[in-house]
């Protein structure tokens, strides 16, 4: 039972950075922009948050610093992709490389000592319920915040005019522009929101998940988040489910030895990557389903006619 609870809670925690990053990217892609640079933005977020903790700033400020770091990085991509109309693939790759460089550069002064991780909070009364309590009510606040962001984003996308505007810009920026919406400005906001969320994801990694500075600590989680959005066929609930699936895979890898699996640790480490490929292949088979919620203008440069 304890092992089950450990795997369950571990899964939820491991999924949290993926939820932040993938939901952020979902919003960006819904607006018709493909930002491949999540990995770079996450690393920026991780470095900024870690730096803030070392500098003695309180934890909420540190997490905010991480989010802003991600947003600042996303702005670089935004200028290239939205104002300069560059190839979005290339701009995203540049951001991924740049972000990993900047984070490594900042990280050279971080040393190798762990920091005090973000505290978990036990919700009064509820957390004392046997089994249910440890499973659901003893996480750190960011875990709940990720779920809250899922609710907010789902509501925004499908229940508000703002969400409708965002989705329709993703279908046809030309039409949105013709009706009179400021397409570029809205896309900038979406891209920065995506950066904010990726920054949060990175901050979560460095101050809560593994509160220890390691270069390139995201280890491909940004790319997995990208795959998650495809896996989710651009729907928020499936992002959530997908993130938990991948979180479970990560935990299986960590708990592999505990479970007595006699396989090389490298094979277990490769599991999430292998699973990403398998999942992508399966989901790509159903073109109809992919097309249903696919933002039709994704990755196509748009410039308003004058």
């Amino acid at each position, binding site marked *: 039972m304890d092992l089950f609870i450990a795997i369950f809670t571990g899964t939820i925690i491991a999924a949290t950075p993926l939820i932040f990053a993938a939901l952020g990217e979902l919003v960006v892609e819904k607006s018709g922009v493909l930002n491949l640079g999540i990995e770079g933005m996450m690393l920026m977020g991780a470095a900024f948050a870690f730096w803030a903790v070392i500098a003695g700033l309180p934890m909420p400020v540190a997490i905010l610093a991480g989010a802003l770091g991600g947003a600042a990085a996303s702005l670089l991509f935004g200028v290239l992709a939205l104002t300069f109309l*560059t190839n979005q693939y290339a701009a995203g790759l540049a951001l991924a490389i740049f972000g990993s460089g900047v984070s*490594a550069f900042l990280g050279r002064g971080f040393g190798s000592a762990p920091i005090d991780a973000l505290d978990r909070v036990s919700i009064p009364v509820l957390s004392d319920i046997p089994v249910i309590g440890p499973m659901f009510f003893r996480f750190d606040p960011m875990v709940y915040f990720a779920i809250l962001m899922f609710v907010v984003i789902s509501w925004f996308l499908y229940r508000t005019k703002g969400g409708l505007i965002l989705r329709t810009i993703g279908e046809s920026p030309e039409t949105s522009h013709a009706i009179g919406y400021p397409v570029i400005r809205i896309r900038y906001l979406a891209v920065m929101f995506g950066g904010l969320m990726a920054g949060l994801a990175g901050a979560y990694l460095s101050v809560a998940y593994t509160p220890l500075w390691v270069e390139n600590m995201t280890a491909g989680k940004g790319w997995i988040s990208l795959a998650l959005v495809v896996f989710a066929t651009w729907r928020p609930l499936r992002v959530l489910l997908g993130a938990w699936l991948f979180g479970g895979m990560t935990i299986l890898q960590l708990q592999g030895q505990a479970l007595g699996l006699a396989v*090389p640790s490298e094979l277990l480490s*490769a599991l999430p990557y292998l699973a990403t490929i398998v999942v*992508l292949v399966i989901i790509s088979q159903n073109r109809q389903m992919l097309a249903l919620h696919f933002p039709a203008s994704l990755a196509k440069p748009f410039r308003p006619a004058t």
Partner: protein
Amino acid sequence: MRIAAPVIATILTLFVGSLMFAGLGYDPATTLQAFFITPVNSINGLSELLLKASPLILIACGLAVGFRANVWNIGAEGQLVIGAIAACGVGLFYPNPESPILLPLMFLAGAAAGMAWAAIPAFLRARMNTNEILVTLMLTYIATLFLSWLVHGPWRDPAGFNYPQTALLPAAAMFEPFDYAYRINGSVFITVAAVVLMWLFTDRSFLGYKMKVSGAAPLAARYAGFRESSAVWTGLLAGGAAAGIAGMAEVAGPLGQLSPQISPGYGFAAIIVAFIGRLNAFGIVLGGLLMSLLFLGGEAVQMNLGLSSSLTRIFQGILLFFLLAADFFIFYRLRRIPEHA
């Protein structure tokens, strides 16, 4: 016009670089000199420049073939690793370690392994409609883990004091340096041949033409009856072969054995090289030299000034940012498509 953007981007990168150094409290002039001049101020420096530029140019040539057709292989790093593993395996386990055909066999093994690794995303994209960006990347992580398992486990040198590395390759499995004072060796000729081949292929051949059309206007390619799957296969296999050969040349050249870290990110940097070179063979040569200089500079300032070598990646990123932005001003502003009423 075609070379204006890279030149402007390079100048702007140097400018931002000096600002950055100044901001960090270093004298920009000295630092820039330490970064860009000192490393190549000697014959050994030039040898190192070519040694590092060679895999970058080789891989970028292969990748550019795919990029021209909008086939986004960004997992060259993984293909390089697999190529190096295969080549090293041949070098270590071929029955006759003095055979003259050992090196050619390793070359073939490296190329074949790189292509095989790239064939996975090619098959998945061509037959299963699966995005090659994510698959090539995931395979890079898997390749690195595979390498790590090999050098920690079955291939670890029993006489290697428990270090995670293989035994050294026999002499017949190594490229012989031109001069033992320097590390540069005959594998640069492979790169030279690749540049010429790439130029012939992209600029003169019909298959290269078809791939250019696939990239610039997929609907036009379909209209003309060019198969998309052949562009996908050609693009990915070219990149895989180039990266595999580069991996072979690393292990049979400066490395001499496998260890968990065999590439300082050549596979990723080559993507930037391909873009700086405008996906054009001779542009890629210049881009590769520039990128190699960034690597050397990063190492040099780390050694001489105690700065982090991660500066290299920052410079790479900034350079690519500026290049993409400069493209906009040069190509889009000046050659805007007239809109008709």
